[in-house]
């Protein structure tokens, strides 16, 4: 399942709620990634951020990425929730999760979901700093 949210969400609550919809006893592993907003970036304090998206294409690509993960690994299901609109430091921006019978598929699929989202899903971040607003020009590498 994929979902865009324009207000704050609790990723752990969402994980627990979604897991209740899966077949009991069939999953043995759930890996998840939660991305949240820092109050700094590229050496500057960031007080707020706005996330723009392309309605229609963004949802289409999130679903496509879930479908691809389901084809690559034996998963019970995938979940992606992503914020749009105005975001404050410490807010969750994104949740990706993958459920499978065994841990290998779950680890690999969860990583695939977040990395592909960062490369292909049309979202754009604009930060508020002491010097004014600025667009984030590109996503960082995984360990930056």
């Amino acid at each position: 399942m994929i979902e865009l949210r324009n207000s704050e969400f609790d990723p752990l609550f969402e994980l627990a709620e979604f897991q209740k919809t899966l077949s009991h006893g069939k999953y043995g592993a759930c890996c998840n990634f939660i991305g949240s907003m820092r109050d700094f970036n590229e050496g500057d304090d960031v007080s707020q951020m706005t996330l723009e998206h392309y309605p229609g294409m963004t949802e289409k690509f999130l679903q496509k990425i879930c479908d691809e993960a389901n084809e690559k690994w034996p998963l019970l299901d995938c979940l992606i929730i992503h914020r749009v609109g105005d975001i404050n430091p410490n807010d969750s921006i994104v949740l990706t999760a993958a459920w499978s019978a065994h841990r290998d598929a779950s680890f690999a699929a969860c990583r695939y979901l977040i990395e592909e989202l960062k490369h292909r899903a049309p979202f754009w971040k604009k930060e508020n700093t002491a010097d004014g607003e600025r667009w984030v020009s590109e996503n960082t590498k995984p360990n930056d």
Partner: protein
Amino acid sequence: MNITVKFFASLREQTGKSDSTISSPETLTVMQAWQQASGLDEMPENTLCAINMEYVDADAMLSDGDELAFFPPVTGG
């Protein structure tokens, strides 16, 4: 042909446009549609292009009624 053109994020601000429609008696490439819709000869480096919500290259051909979008590198997650 009639094409709906959308600009997002920094490209919307640079061109001063979000949604527009362009018309042409001839079949256009994505690059030609960029020039007509934005009024700019050059497409900024790293611009991403999508026809009907699928990524394409700037030399892709458009069809009547297509939705064409231009945007900078994506920064979600």
